[in-house]
């Protein structure tokens, strides 16, 4: 009897030890080479930093996190193959990719497998296709554009606005949301200017802006075109305040546009320059570990892991099938989970609501001027 009891105890201990030792497996597919290498490397490093921190504190529900990284080569076709391979290994959660185009072709695979995918893409359409397994780490246009519209209407006090947008899915998506919001708030769109991707000459477009004489100009183009139009706006002496998104006030735009970028303002969802103590601490840890200052993609990767941690702890168990349902509608508070950096609410579509920042270019540098609160 005694020996049977001892055997039973030993078996229970062995089982528990085995369960404890079993790591939670995550799969990451990111742009580690090719055109998006900066995006993917920041994303990967953010993930690794978060996992290191969590494992150092005992893991999630007593289990360590383990991640495999695969390279999409910034190519949607390769991304699809890598995601299929990653899903075959039955990960708990799929992380990445960062490019919207790669997310678009991989999301159906993860949904079919019933695995939650936490990614870096920002195109509006990604979370509008009814995919119940797809989650963002940054704002989609549905979240950022209402904030932009509120700022133009409320802070800039603009009664009229010119909207300049690039004629592709990205530009059209942003323009549709911001125009609707502006009209709803009572700011009239007096010039609605579609431009082409890669457009070199903006003289005519700026001429039309001058003719419309708006109180503000909203610019929603890719980085290089943003720099060109900033130069042309300066060349033609347009003095109306300029508002945009990350693509108007990014470091590359400032470098290309030079003085012409000064004064431009933009809404930024994530920035390591944010006046938030937890983000400052993240920036310091990241810089110390990798010897460079991360961009917003580093933040995205880091946040993705803390979303996994908070959701799993909310469930109280490691259940890949229930993960997506639990994350929908979840609010994660930074006071309870400091790794999430800022309070965030995940919507039923996988979009995020959290505070963001209003940045102005001052003497060639981004300066955070205002913190914009969560919408809800």
């Amino acid at each position, binding site marked *: 009897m005694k020996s049977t009891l001892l055997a039973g105890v030993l078996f229970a201990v062995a089982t528990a030890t085995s369960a404890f030792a079993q790591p939670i497996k995550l799969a990451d597919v990111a742009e580690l080479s090719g055109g998006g290498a900066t995006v993917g490397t920041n994303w990967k490093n953010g993930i690794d930093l978060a996992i290191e921190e969590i494992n150092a504190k005992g893991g999630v529900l007593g289990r360590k996190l383990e991640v495999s990284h695969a390279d999409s080569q910034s190519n949607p076709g390769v991304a699809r193959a890598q995601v299929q391979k990653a899903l075959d290994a039955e990960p708990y959660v799929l992380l990445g990719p960062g490019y919207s185009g790669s997310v678009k072709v991989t999301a159906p695979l993860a949904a079919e497998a019933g695995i939650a995918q936490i990614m870096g893409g920002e195109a509006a359409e990604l979370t509008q296709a009814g995919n119940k397994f797809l989650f963002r780490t940054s704002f989609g246009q549905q979240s950022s554009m209402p904030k932009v519209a509120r700022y133009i209407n409320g802070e800039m006090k603009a009664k009229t606005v010119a909207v300049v947008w690039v004629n592709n899915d990205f530009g059209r998506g942003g323009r549709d949301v911001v125009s609707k919001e502006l009209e709803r708030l009572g700011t009239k769109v007096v010039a609605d200017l579609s431009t082409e991707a890669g457009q*070199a000459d903006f003289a005519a477009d700026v001429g039309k802006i001058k003719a419309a004489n708006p109180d503000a100009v909203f610019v929603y183009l890719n980085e*290089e075109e943003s720099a060109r139009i900033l130069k042309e706006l300066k060349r033609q002496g347009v003095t109306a305040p300029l508002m945009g998104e990350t693509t108007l006030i990014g470091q590359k735009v400032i470098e290309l546009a030079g003085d012409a970028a000064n004064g431009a303002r933009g809404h930024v969802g994530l920035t390591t320059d944010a006046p938030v103590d937890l983000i400052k601490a993240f920036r310091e840890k990241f810089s110390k570990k990798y010897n460079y200052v991360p961009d917003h993609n580093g933040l995205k990767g880091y946040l993705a892991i803390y979303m996994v941690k908070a959701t799993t702890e909310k469930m109280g168990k490691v259940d890949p099938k229930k993960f997506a349902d639990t994350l929908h509608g979840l609010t994660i508070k930074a006071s309870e989970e400091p790794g999430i950096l800022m309070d965030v609410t995940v919507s039923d579509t996988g979009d995020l609501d959290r505070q963001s920042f209003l940045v102005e270019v001052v003497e060639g540098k981004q300066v955070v001027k205002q913190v914009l609160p969560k919408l809800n």
Partner: protein
Amino acid sequence: MSTLFDLLVAGLATGAIYALVAVGFTLLWQTSQTINFAQGEFVMLPAFLMLAAMHVGAPFWLAIIIGILLSMILLGLAFKMLLVDPMLRHGVLPLAIATMALAIGIKEAVKQFFSAEASPFPSIVPTGDIRILGHAVALQSVGVLVVAILAVVGLTMLLTRTSLGHQMQAAAQNPTVARIIGVPVERMILLTFLINAFLVALASMLITPIYLAKFSSGEVLGQAAFIAAIVGGFNQVRGAIAGGLLIGVLDNLAAAYVSTQYRAAVPMIFLIVVILFRPQGLLGRAEERTV
């Protein structure tokens, strides 16, 4: 009205740059039957040569001189000796195809050695406005126009007022007779290649502050200048100038009053109309060759 004036000024400034490039097309065609489909890339490359010079520490003015000189060596001398001369004996078409290959080669090389991303490029003209006829006009537009006009006037004077220009005219109109009367035809042809290289380097310096230095920026310019040369008259320098200015203005007016999406189509439609009703171009002359 103010918008129309602004559009005309901006269009003339862009058109003046198209004109410089179109003149190069005309010169090469007239003297050596070379249709250079790499002409747009010829405009893109000098900016990168100037940036490279600045990168190794040269001040902007010196970088411009180095860029122009290197362009004349690479895009004038080397282009003629290494590509045009060996290919031309096989006909105009193989040469035209060879220039297309060259365009791809230049673009990819720039992408490889510099970057696929755009780079800023300083302007020789300061930003700011001056008032003309009661309208505020950008100094940069005026500067571009002035430099382009000076270049074209200088070229015209060289061709019409100097012995060298007359020899170039003779070499273009009838090389056989020109040789008989002692005109060094080969040297005159080389000179037109060097002038073309100078003009594209000048155009590069003027347009790159606006378009930014990027490996693909020559595509738009090459196409616009080619259309300008045909519209104006491929066998007349003055035709290329008029064509350049016309296409620049038309492009801007189309973008403003038609639509941005169709702006690229408007000059092409104009080109078709010109070819249908005046095949020799607006200022070209049928069956005559002159520079």
